[in-house]
C-alpha cells in the first residue's frame, strides 16, 4: 500500500486483497472529498482489527481518521449529527454482533431521518461491518446481521464478494446520499485477485450473474458467492448446469436480474450463513415465488445456517453451507424433466 492516492484505474489493475481494495476506496474518498471522515474503534493507528483502515490516520491525520471511544451507539449517533452538518462519515462496527448496541440509532434514526424530515435531511453515512463466519471466531464474532438491516426501510444494504466490487461498491456507498450498511465478508479479506474488470464497474444496486448456467439459479452474496461457485463446479461434473448470481445489493433487491435468470432456469435456491428462519433467504424465496410462480418447476430452496446461535470455532464447519450440502438439497427437488 503506497501512501499516495492512486487512481481507481491503477488500483484496479493490480491484484489486491479485498482488504487492500477497501483501504484504497477509503483512501481515494478521503483524498477526493474533505467531508469524508472515518472513525470507530481501533480504526486509527492500529488500522482496525482487520487492518482495513491501515495507514489512513498516518496519511490523512487525526482530524480525518481517528479512534473513537468504545461505544457503538455513540459512534453511529454522532455520525448522524456529523452527516447533518455536511460530513460523510464512514464508521466501523468491529463485528456484526457489536453493531447491536447501535441498533436503535440505526433503525430509529439512520434509516428514518430522511423520511422524517420530508427529504430535507439526508444522511450520507456508511456503516462498515465485517460480517459472517468462516474464520474460527469466538462467540459473537461470526454473526450475519443482514436480515435485521434489510427489513428496515430507509437503509441500503450491500455486500461485495470480491476485491473489485469491494473497491467500486465502497466508493459508491461513500458517494451515496443515503445511508449504507456495508457488509464486508471477513473470511474474504485476504482473498486476492486482480481487480481489473472489463468496462465500467456495475452499480452497487445491481446483481451480477457471475457464472452462467441453464438448470438452476443459485443466489448468493458476500461469503457464499465462493461457495456457490464451488458448487457449480462440482455440479458441472455431474452435468448439472448452475447459474450463479452474486446479489451484491441486498436492499434494494435486483428483481430484474434475478427474475430473468429464474425465468430461464425454472429453479432457484438461495444460500446464506445466517439462520434460516426469517433470514434474508426467506425474502428471496418469497419474492421470486410471487413474481415467477408459473416459471418455477420446483420450490425455491434455502440452504442456510441452522436455526441455532452461531457455533464455537471447532463446530462452525457443521453449520456453514457447503457445496455438498447444497447439491444434496438440490437433489431433493423432483427432477422429472
Amino acid at each position, binding site marked *: 500500500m503506497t501512501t499516495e492516492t492512486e487512481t481507481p484505474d491503477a488500483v484496479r489493475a493490480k491484484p489486491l486483497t479485498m482488504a487492500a481494495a477497501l483501504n484504497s476506496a477509503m483512501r481515494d474518498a478521503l483524498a477526493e472529498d474533505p467531508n469524508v471522515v472515518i472513525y470507530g474503534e481501533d480504526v486509527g493507528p492500529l488500522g482496525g482489527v482487520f487492518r482495513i483502515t491501515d495507514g489512513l490516520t498516518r496519511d490523512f491525520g487525526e482530524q480525518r481518521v481517528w479512534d473513537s471511544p468504545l461505544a457503538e451507539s455513540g459512534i453511529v449517533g454522532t455520525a448522524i*449529527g456529523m*452527516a447533518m452538518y455536511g460530513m460523510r462519515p464512514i464508521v466501523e462496527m468491529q463485528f456484526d454482533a457489536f453493531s447491536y448496541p447501535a441498533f436503535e440509532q440505526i433503525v*430509529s434514526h439512520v434509516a428514518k431521518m*430522511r*423520511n422524517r*424530515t420530508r427529504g430535507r435531511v439526508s444522511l450520507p453515512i456508511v456503516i462498515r461491518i465485517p460480517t459472517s463466519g468462516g474464520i474460527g471466531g469466538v462467540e459473537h464474532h461470526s454473526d450475519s446481521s443482514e436480515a435485521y438491516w434489510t427489513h428496515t*426501510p430507509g437503509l*441500503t444494504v450491500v455486500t461485495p464478494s470480491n476485491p473489485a466490487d469491494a473497491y467500486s461498491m465502497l466508493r459508491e456507498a461513500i458517494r451515496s446520499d443515503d445511508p449504507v450498511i456495508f457488509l464486508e465478508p471477513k473470511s474474504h479479506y485476504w482473498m486476492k485477485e486482480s481487480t481489473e474488470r472489463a468496462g465500467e464497474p456495475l452499480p452497487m444496486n445491481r446483481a451480477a450473474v457471475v457464472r452462467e448456467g441453464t438448470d438452476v439459479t443459485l443466489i448468493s452474496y458476500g461469503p457464499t458467492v465462493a461457495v456457490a461457485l464451488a458448487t457449480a463446479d462440482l455440479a458441472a461434473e455431474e452435468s448439472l448446469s448452475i447459474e450463479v448470481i452474486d446479489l451484491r445489493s441486498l436492499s434494494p433487491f435486483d428483481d430484474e436480474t434475478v427474475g430473468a435468470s429464474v425465468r430461464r432456469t425454472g429453479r432457484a435456491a438461495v444460500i446464506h450463513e445466517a439462520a434460516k428462519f426469517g433470514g434474508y433467504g426467506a425474502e428471496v424465496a418469497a419474492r421470486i415465488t410471487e413474481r415467477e410462480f408459473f416459471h418455477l418447476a420446483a420450490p425455491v430452496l434455502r440452504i442456510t445456517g441452522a436455526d441455532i446461535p452461531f457455533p464455537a470455532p471447532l463446530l462452525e464447519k457443521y453449520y456453514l453451507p457447503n457445496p455438498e450440502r447444497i447439491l444434496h438439497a438440490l437433489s431433493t427437488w423432483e427432477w422429472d424433466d
Partner: protein
Amino acid sequence: MSLTVETRATIGLPDAEPLRLIEETGTVVAPKLRRGIDLPGADTLLELYRRMVIARRWDTQVTALTRQGRLSTYPSARGQEAGEIGTVLAMEAADWLFPTYRDSIAVMTRGVPTEQILSGFRGDWHCGWDPQEHRTAPQATPLATQALHAVGLATAARLKGDPIAVATFIGDGATSEGDAHEAFNFAGVWRAPIVFVIQNNQFAISVPLSKQTHSRMLADRAVGYGIPGFHVDGNDVAAVYAVVSAALARARTGDGPTIIECLTYRVEPHTNSDDPSRYRDSSDVELWRKRDPIERLARYLESEGMLGDELRRSFVQEAEDAATAMRDTLNAEPALDPLELFDHVYNVERPALREQRDALAGELDENGSARS
C-alpha cells in the same frame, strides 16, 4: 462572567444548592451568592419575560386544542419556560438546537412556524420543518438519542472550524439511558462545542427522580467525564440564561462541553393521556405552580420599574394574537397526500417501492379519494 473551570484536574462537584440570580420573591440574590455570575441586562430580561409570556400562552392553547382532539398528543412544558426560553435566547442564529418532544416552546422561540412544529403531534408528518433552515433538529422521541446527534454535529462544526455551538435538552429520566452517557463521554473526549441542558422536571412520566438515580443530583455526572457541571434553579430564567450563555461562549471558543442541570417541575400531566393522580400528590404540584418562572421574573421587573401594566398588557396581547393565529392554523385541515409516503424514504428511486406507490395510487383512484 466566566465559567472558569478549564482543566479537568480542577473540576469539582457542583454546589448542591442550585444557582439562583433572582429569588422567588423577585429580589436579586446578593452578589456574593451569585458565584461570579452577573444578572443579564435589562433588555435581555425584558425579552426573556416577553418570550416566556408568549410561550406560555402558546403552550396553553396547544393543550386546549389537544383536548378538543385537534392533536393526537401534546407534551406540555408549562412551568419549564425558564429552562426552555432561557436556553434558546442564549443561542445565536448559527447555533444548533437539538430538542425533545417536550421542547415545542423552545422550537417555537427558535422561530419555527406553529403548524410546522405541531405537524408531528397533529399527525400529518413526523417533522414539519426544515432542520437546516432553522438550525433546529427534529424533536426526538427515542430518549437521549438526540444528545449523540448533537455531539456529532458540534464535533463536525469544530472539525470545519465553524465557531458555533450546539445546545440540546435532555430530560431527567432520559439521563438514565446509555446514550446520555455516551453523549457526555464523547463530548468530553472530543471537546465538542455543546451544552447539555438537563431539564430535571423530577418526573419521567410517573417515575420520580428518586427511582431514577441515587445520585445527589444529575449535574454530579459531569465530573466523571471531565466536564464542568452546573446546578441551576430551572425556574429562574435569569440564571438559566446567564449560565447557558457562558457555557455556549466557552463552547464556541473551543473550551468544550458543559452540563447544566435545571431543577424544575412538570406541573402538567406527562401528556394529555396521562393521569398524574395515580402517582403524585397534587399538593406538590400546587407548590410548584406557585413557583412560576414567569411570575418570578415579573415580580423582579415590576419592583425595578421595568414592567408596568401597559407593557404587560401588550405582551399578553401579542401572545393572544399568536394563539389566535395558531388556532386558526390548526383548525384548518392539514393538506395530506398519501402518496408522499413513498417520496422521501430514499434519494434513489427503487422500482419495488414504486410498485407499492402505484398500488396505493390505484386504490385512491378507485375510491375517488381527494388528494391535494
